């Protein structure tokens, strides 16, 4: 009896997992499929699951429908600057919040938490006004400066740093290490899993971000890939889903590449952050 019910549960579990995987993976596979279909196939009924002949030309078509090289360059510039700046600011901040005593520490950390919980939909207007006043709206700064620091990252790294025994830091002090050495040579290497979680989240969320670049950009010059791809929709009046999906494929390709190269550490860091 016991054995039987165990088996039933195992089967039920497997079926549930299969459904979950299907729900998550199907839209992605659907995107891949559509991006390779002909105009005829996307409007055929019943729907086409696997294109007869993969239409690689859709990618070229999508790429040529706008200044995608420029978009790519903008996206890359933003992502690299944002992540670099975050590294420089976030790590010492998290260390200070975790291990140093200074006046107003709790208040300041409270502010960080508030920043953590405030959605961009609330802050974009004042930031927009500020950036306009600075007259930097036709540069990439409005998409970089607000993200120089990362409240979520500070929070996560601080939690991590707090678990590091004080004795280690004291030992480093006795080894004549200054604060920067302690932060970057001792603390940061220990926080690697937390750090890669933070960098990965940053990367994915900024790379895919649609809202912020949409409200912060007025000219083609400063637009990013997600905006460019969204604009494919409007170019010819009718919606070419295959072209749009090809554009989306171009957008997610870097994420896939990153995933393929560091899937192990990504899984580890997600497991670490409890997000699994």
């Amino acid at each position, binding site marked *: 009896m016991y054995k039987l019910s165990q088996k039933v549960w195992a089967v039920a579990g497997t079926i549930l997992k299969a459904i979950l995987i299907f729900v998550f993976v199907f839209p992605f596979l659907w995107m891949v499929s559509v991006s390779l279909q002909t105009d005829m196939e996307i409007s055929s009924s019943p729907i086409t699951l696997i294109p007869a002949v993969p239409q690689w030309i859709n990618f070229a078509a999508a790429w040529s429908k706008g200044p995608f090289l420029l978009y790519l360059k903008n996206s890359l510039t933003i992502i690299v600057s944002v992540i670099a700046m975050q590294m420089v600011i976030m790590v010492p901040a998290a260390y200070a919040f975790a291990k140093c005593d200074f006046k107003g520490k709790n208040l300041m950390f409270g502010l960080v938490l508030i920043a953590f919980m405030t959605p961009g939909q609330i802050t974009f207007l004042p930031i927009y006004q500020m950036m306009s006043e600075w007259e930097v709206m036709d540069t990439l700064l409005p998409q970089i400066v607000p993200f120089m620091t990362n409240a979520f990252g500070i929070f996560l790294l601080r939690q991590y740093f707090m678990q590091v*025994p004080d*004795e280690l830091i004291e030992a*480093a002090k006795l*080894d004549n290490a200054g604060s920067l050495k302690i932060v970057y040579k001792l603390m940061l290497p220990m926080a690697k899993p937390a750090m890669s979680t933070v960098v990965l989240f940053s990367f994915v969320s900024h790379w895919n971000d649609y809202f912020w670049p949409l409200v912060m950009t007025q000219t083609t010059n400063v637009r990013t890939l997600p905006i460019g791809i969204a604009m494919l929709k409007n170019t010819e009046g009718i919606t070419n889903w295959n072209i749009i999906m090809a554009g989306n494929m171009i957008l997610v390709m870097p994420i896939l590449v990153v995933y393929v190269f560091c899937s192990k550490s990504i899984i580890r860091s997600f497991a670490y952050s409890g997000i699994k």
Partner: protein
Amino acid sequence: MAAIEFKNVTKKFGNHVVIENINLKIKDGSFTVLVGPSGCGKTTLLRMIAGIGPQTSGQVLIDGNDVTEIAPGKRGVAMVFQNYAIYPTMNVRDNIEFGLKNNKIPKEERDILVKEASEKVGLEEYLDRKPSTLSGGQRQRVALARAMVKKPSVFLMDEPLSNLDAKLRVQMRVELIELHKKLQTTFVYVTHDQVEAMSMADTVILMNNGFIQQIAAPEEIYRNPANLFTARFIGSPAMNIVELNDGIRLGFRPERGILSDEADPKADFSVEGQVVTREMLGRETTYSVRDPQGRTYMVTGLDDPYKVDDKVYLNVSLKHIYFFGKDEQRIYEEDAQQYQACLEALRRGL
């Protein structure tokens, strides 16, 4: 090489006074052991020397210079922490080298120093290993090498052997004594274990509740305890303490008690009793003897003539008896008046 001095040093955590107005000198080149029960302030004292838990008031001097304003890394001290505090992401070499790098020692010189230190502690095969792959004893050695390599003038060690198993602990004790001989620098060693203190120190500083109870060589602190706390803390089994009249107490070491079948008329202290337990430890035997009033005495001896429940007499001669006054301070023979009172109390009996 450096002497250490505490001048009117007080340490508080918030309102909690842990050390109050301590004055203390640690001799240059000595192997000084700070010993006392857990929570008495040993670590606190050590951390003040290192500069990682500075005093609330007073001065700490190293080689005559007030080091209050000097950063921990610039005091010429090295510390071995209780949990070793090895940098977990660095391999053994990087751990040992970290301080040298921070002190801008050139690479060639660093290599020589690291080699030297790792050989001294027997780690030369392990330089490329990560700490997580090392045993407790090996980590301990990494911590030692890391301290040694900087050629500090003061070596601070906070219960460095407490995480090792008994056998390794005995072996490391010997190695530390030899290391001290070789390096000839000041060692300040913290432990709660009086056996460790007695076996390693040339000077023992016994503390209790933030106060210094006695500073003396191990033989001296054993033979001549200055107060009741010291008498009880040092030695195992502990000194037998018996209450006399007027708050006076007498004490004698277990090995000074002599058991016999009959009362010894020449003994200055003699009680009748019964053997309650007998522990045969090989070389010697420990008896506990209970007298009719229910007091228990520990007696050790090389002979092993008695069994449990045997009736015995316990005799101690005056030259092995210590007296302590109401204030728990020792009453010395030189203090004739008080000493006479003690003898009187002894004569009047228990």
